[in-house]
C-alpha cells in the first residue's frame, strides 16, 4: 500500500484531508525505477480549484503518455496544512507518489490569474526550492511556468528557470529530450537553460537584461547570450483535432468546482472583444472535429462515471457544428441520465430550445453579459450584443417560463461616462418591465428576479486596451455607487439585485497584469510578510501590499492609472502572441471612435494570426454573422 506523506494525526486535523492523499480514479501511477523524468505539475491554488482546470488535465495526460516520464500533481496546501508543514518542516509532496517535490526533475506551475503570484512562492518555499532562480543548484528541479499570465511573465520572472509561452501541447517532448541529453552528458544547469532558450516558445528570463529610461519605462532588452532570440513567439496547436486530449481525466473524491466531464469544443474566439485577453491570445479560433468530440464525450463519460458533461469554449454558440453535437449528446445523455451543462451560450431561440431539452423542468437562471450599459460603450469594447438581441432573448425566455436573469457588466471601461453607467439601471429595468408585459398576471409563477453584477475593468497585455489607464480605487467605488443609484431609481428596482466586486484586489490585479521586472522584489517581500492566497478575499491584505510597495520604492500608480504613449515599449513586447501590435493599435483607435470591428467569420481584419494557416483563417469569409 502507498505510504502517505502526512501522518494520520495531521490528516485528521486539517480540513478536507482528501486534498492531500491522491489515489483518485484515473490518477496515473508508475514505477519510478523505470522513469527517466519526474515531473510535478502544479496549480498554485487549493485542490478544488486546481483540479477543475482543464489545461493541467491535458498536460498530465500528454506527459504521462511519454513512457519515460511520470507526471504527478501538486496543489497549494490550504492555510491550515501550510502552517503545520512549516512548523513540522514537512516538505511539499506530489499527490501520486507522495514523494517530495524537491527530488523531481521538473516543477511546472500554471499561472492562470494574477492574484496567485504569492502562491507560487508558497509552493517553492514549502518544497525547499530556493525562491529565486539564480540561487538554485544542480540538485533543484527545473522550475517552468506556463498559462495565460506568462504572456507577461516579467513580474514573476525571477522565480522561474524557464517560461513556456503559448499552448503546452507542442514543445514538451523536445524540451524533455534536451534535458535528458544534458543530464546524461553531465552538462550544467546553466548550459541546459542556454540550450533551452533556443527551443521555440521557451523563454529563459535570466538570459536577458532590461534597462529603464528616466521616466521608468523600458529603454532596452538585452540578450546576455549571443544567438538567443530577441523575440519569443507563442506556441500554438495547428491541428487541434489531432492533438492530445485526456480520455481518462482524474476523478476527485471531494466535490470540486468543475465536477464533470469537460469537453473543449474549440479553442479561441472569433469575437475580438477589446477588453478580452483570451480572445486575442488564442487566435485563430480552431474547432475540434465533430467526430472527435462525439467519441471523446462517450469515452470520457464511461471512464469517469461523471453525471454531467460541460462544453468548454470562449463562445460555444460560435461552434459551427453545435446543433449536431448537441443532438448527439442529448440522445446519449438521456440514455445514461447525464446532464449537459452549456456555459457561454448566446441566448436565442436555438439555445432556449436546447436548454429546454437538457434541463427538463428545472429552469436555471439565464445569463447575459452585455458588459456595458449603453450601446455606445458596447461599441467601444466591440461587444456585438445589442439591446434588441438581449430583449428578444429575454422575451423568448420569459415565454418559456424562465424568471431569473443574471446580467454581467464592467465598470471603469475606457471612455466610460456617467451616462453609460446610468444606462445599466435602465437596461435592468427594461428587462423587468418586459417580463410583466410578456407574461400575463395569471401565468406568473413568481416575480422576475434580476441580478446585476459589476466587476472592475483591468486592462490586460495584448489587448487593444493595453494602452488604457486603469481607474483608481476611488473611481471604481464611485462608479459602483452610481450604478446602485441608477438601479434604485428604477420603477422595477425591487426586482433587481445588485452585486459589485471589491475594488482593492482589482487595482492590485491591474498592477501585476501590466507590471515589469521590478515587481519581483515586491511580490517576494509581500510573501515574506506572509501574503498568500491573495485571490481569496479573506486572506487578501491590501494594507500589507501597499506598505510593501512603499518599502520597495515602487509606485503602484505607474502601472495602473498612467497614460501610456503609443510608442512605449511594454514589458511584454518581447513576446509575439500571434496578433500584431499594429492590429491592436488600430483596434485601440477604433475604440476611441466607438467603431465596431466585424468578427473573424464576417471579415478578416489582418490581425496577424493568419500566418498560422489554421482554423477560422482558412474559412471563406462573409457568410455568417
Amino acid at each position: 500500500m502507498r505510504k502517505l506523506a502526512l501522518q494520520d494525526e495531521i490528516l485528521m486535523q486539517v480540513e478536507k484531508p482528501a486534498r492531500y492523499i491522491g489515489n483518485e480514479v484515473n490518477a496515473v501511477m508508475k514505477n519510478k525505477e523505470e522513469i527517466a523524468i519526474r515531473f510535478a505539475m502544479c496549480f498554485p491554488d487549493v485542490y478544488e480549484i486546481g483540479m477543475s482546470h482543464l489545461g493541467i488535465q491535458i498536460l498530465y495526460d500528454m506527459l504521462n503518455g511519454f513512457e519515460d516520464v511520470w507526471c504527478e500533481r501538486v496543489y497549494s496546501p490550504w492555510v491550515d496544512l501550510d502552517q503545520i508543514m512549516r512548523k513540522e518542516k514537512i516538505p511539499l509532496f506530489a499527490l501520486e507518489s507522495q514523494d517530495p517535490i524537491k527530488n523531481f526533475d521538473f516543477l511546472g506551475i500554471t499561472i492562470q490569474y494574477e492574484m496567485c503570484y504569492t502562491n507560487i512562492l508558497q509552493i517553492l518555499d514549502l518544497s525547499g526550492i530556493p525562491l529565486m532562480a539564480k540561487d538554485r543548484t544542480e540538485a533543484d528541479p527545473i522550475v517552468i511556468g506556463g498559462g495565460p499570465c506568462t504572456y507577461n511573465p516579467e513580474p514573476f520572472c525571477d522565480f522561474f528557470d524557464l517560461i513556456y509561452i503559448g499552448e503546452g501541447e507542442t514543445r514538451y517532448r523536445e524540451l524533455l529530450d534536451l534535458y535528458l541529453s544534458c543530464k546524461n552528458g553531465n552538462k550544467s544547469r546553466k548550459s541546459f537553460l542556454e540550450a533551452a532558450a533556443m527551443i521555440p516558445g521557451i523563454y529563459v528570463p535570466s538570459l536577458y537584461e532590461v534597462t529603464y529610461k528616466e521616466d521608468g519605462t523600458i529603454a532596452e532588452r538585452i540578450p546576455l547570450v549571443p544567438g538567443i532570440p530577441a523575440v519569443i513567439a507563442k506556441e500554438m496547436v495547428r491541428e487541434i483535432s489531432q492533438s492530445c486530449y485526456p480520455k481518462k481525466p482524474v476523478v476527485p473524491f471531494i466535490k470540486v468546482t468543475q465536477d464533470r466531464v469537460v469537453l473543449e469544443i474549440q479553442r479561441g474566439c472569433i469575437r475580438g472583444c477589446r477588453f478580452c485577453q483570451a480572445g486575442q491570445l488564442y487566435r485563430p479560433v480552431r474547432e475540434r472535429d465533430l467526430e472527435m468530440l462525439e467519441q471523446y464525450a462517450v469515452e470520457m463519460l464511461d471512464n469517469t462515471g461523471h453525471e454531467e458533461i460541460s462544453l468548454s469554449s470562449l463562445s460555444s454558440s460560435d461552434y459551427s457544428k453545435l446543433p449536431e453535437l448537441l443532438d448527439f449528446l442529448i440522445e446519449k445523455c438521456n440514455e445514461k441520465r447525464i446532464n449537459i451543462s452549456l456555459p457561454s451560450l448566446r441566448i436565442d431561440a436555438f439555445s432556449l430550445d436546447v436548454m429546454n431539452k437538457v434541463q427538463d423542468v428545472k429552469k436555471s437562471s439565464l445569463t447575459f453579459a452585455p458588459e456595458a450599459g449603453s450601446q455606445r460603450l458596447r461599441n467601444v469594447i466591440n461587444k456585438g450584443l445589442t439591446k434588441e438581441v438581449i430583449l428578444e432573448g429575454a422575451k423568448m425566455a420569459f415565454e418559456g417560463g424562465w424568471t431569473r436573469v443574471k446580467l454581467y457588466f464592467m465598470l471603469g471601461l475606457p471612455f466610460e461616462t456617467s451616462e453609460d453607467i446610468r444606462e445599466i439601471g435602465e437596461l435592468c429595468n427594461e428587462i423587468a418591465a418586459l417580463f410583466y408585459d410578456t407574461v400575463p398576471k395569471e401565468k406568473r409563477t413568481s416575480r422576475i428576479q434580476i441580478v446585476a453584477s459589476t466587476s472592475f475593468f483591468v486592462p490586460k497585455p495584448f489587448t487593444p486596451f493595453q494602452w488604457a489607464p486603469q481607474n483608481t480605487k476611488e473611481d471604481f467605488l464611485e462608479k459602483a455607487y452610481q450604478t446602485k443609484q441608477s438601479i434604485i431609481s428604477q420603477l422595477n428596482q425591487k426586482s433587481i439585485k445588485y452585486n459589485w466586486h471589491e475594488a482593492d484586489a482589482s487595482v492590485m490585479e491591474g498592477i501585476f497584469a501590466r507590471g515589469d521586472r521590478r515587481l519581483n522584489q515586491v511580490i517576494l517581500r509581500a510573501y515574506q510578510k506572509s501574503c498568500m492566497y491573495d485571490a481569496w478575499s479573506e486572506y487578501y491584505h491590501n494594507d500589507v501590499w501597499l506598505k510593501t510597495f512603499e518599502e520597495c520604492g515602487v509606485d503602484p500608480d505607474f502601472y495602473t492609472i498612467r497614460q501610456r504613449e503609443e510608442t512605449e515599449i511594454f514589458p511584454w513586447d518581447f513576446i509575439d502572441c500571434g496578433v500584431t501590435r499594429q492590429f491592436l493599435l488600430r483596434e485601440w483607435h477604433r475604440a476611441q471612435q466607438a467603431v465596431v470591428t466585424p468578427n473573424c467569420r464576417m471579415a478578416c481584419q489582418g490581425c496577424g494570426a493568419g500566418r498560422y494557416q489554421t482554423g477560422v483563417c482558412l474559412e471563406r469569409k462573409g457568410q455568417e454573422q
Partner: protein
Amino acid sequence: MKVRIKFSKYGPMKFIGHLDVMRYFQKAIRRAGIDIAYSEGFSPHQIMSFAAPLSVGYTSEGEYFDIELRTPMEEEELQKRLQGAMVEGIDILKVQNLPESEGNAMASVQAASYLAGFRSLSFLPEDWEDRLLAFYNTPTIPVNKKTKRGEKEIDLKESIYRFEIREITEKCALLEAAAGHKGIYMLLNASSGGNIKPSFVMETFLAAIGVTLPEYGLVIHRVETCKASETGEIGDWKALI
C-alpha cells in the same frame, strides 16, 4: 432486483467522508456499466441506500449499501465489474441478491462491532484492562448523549452489547497503527434511533478510569454491521449479508 453490496474501507480511503463515498460509488456504478434503477421525478437519482455511515478516520471491513437493478445481474459478475472500478482502499467483499421482502440496509441495522486500538499505550496505567472491564461491569453507566434536540440522559450500558479486551494482531492489517497492542472489541447499538459512536464509548470509559486521551490517540476499525435476528438473542445477530 434488489442487491446488497459489502465492502471494506482502508488505507488512504479512510479520509474520505460518508457523502463522498456515496458520490464515489455513484460514479463507480456508471464506470462499471451496471444497469441501476433511477428514482422518478424531476432530478432522477440512482436508487442506492447505505447501511450505516462511517466516521472519517475509521477503517472498516463491514460496510454495506443496497442498490436496485433495472436488469438483474449475476452476483459474481456484478462483484467483478464493481471491483474493477475500485481504487486502492475499497474492496468489494460480497454481493448478494435480496428477496423483495428484505428491508433496506439502513433500517435493518441493529448493531455494529468495532475494534479500538491505541496509537501508543504510554499514557495508560498498567492495569488499564482490569479497570476498563471493572467499569463495564458496573450496573448502569448514565451519560449525557447529544441528540438533534439537545442532550438527554441515557444508560450507555444498554447500548453496549459486548465489551472485551483483545489482542490486535498482525492479521488486523487495517488497524496497522495499533498492531501489536491490546485493544478493545465492542458491539454497539447502531440502529437509526440509538446509534452509539465507539469513540464516545472510549472517551467515557477512559474518563471514568481517570485517563485523558491524547488527541487522535485512538484508531478505530469497524468489524461488522449486524441485523437483528427473529429470536432477538444478541448471540444470533448476523452480518447484513
